[in-house]
């Protein structure tokens, strides 16, 4: 009985880690193949976060099962990645848009452009007034 539980836990942990690695590979594939900075940021932040979540939770269960050790550092690592990955992706996309990185030619809609242009016009008008 104990052997069955042990082998099931081993296989489960291994499959969890493998799933995380496959998600990371999927994210890297998206980073290679997608046509645009913004689409690439989508691939990099979303699936990458899920992949590292799977790997780190696999490590958490590993140390919990084999060493009887509940690792707060791994939980903190998961939490930290979950907090920082969207922030980094957002800052990156914002920097890309503000430095005029072009969108993909087949992009349908750009809702930010009229807003930013209007803001710039207002600034110029204010400068003219002064």
């Amino acid at each position: 009985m104990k052997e069955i539980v042990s082998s099931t836990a081993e296989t489960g942990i291994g499959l969890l880690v493998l799933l995380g690695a496959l998600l990371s590979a999927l994210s890297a594939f998206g980073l290679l193949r997608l046509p645009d900075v913004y689409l690439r940021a989508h691939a990099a932040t979303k699936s990458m976060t899920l992949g590292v979540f799977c790997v780190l939770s696999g490590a958490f269960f590993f140390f919990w099962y084999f060493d009887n050790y509940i690792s707060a550092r791994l939980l903190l690592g998961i939490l930290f990645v979950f907090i920082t990955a969207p922030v980094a992706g957002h800052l990156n996309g914002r920097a890309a848009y503000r430095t005029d990185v072009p969108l993909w030619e087949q992009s349908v809609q750009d809702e930010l452009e009229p807003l930013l242009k209007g803001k710039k016009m207002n600034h110029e008008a204010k400068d003219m007034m002064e």
Partner: protein
Amino acid sequence: MLSSLLFISLLILSLAILACLYRVLRGPSMADRITALDTIGINVIAIVAVLSMMLKTQAYLDIILLIGILAFLSTVAFARYIERGAVFKNEGDR
């Protein structure tokens, strides 16, 4: 069973890092390179976790937090640099 699965995962993660490295070297814009570098940092976190499982030690778990913080800070600094031309700037002229 577990060790072979861990080894395969390590191999896949290294291939993912190679793919990101291609984007770092090739990327048409600066933001592409920063995205790829951030992804490499997160991949390295996963590799350290898998490695600490393979070696059955908890000594490497601190490195996960350290690499996470460093990757996030470098991404923020790079993004601010390409957006404003400086990492730290006087906030008065926003």
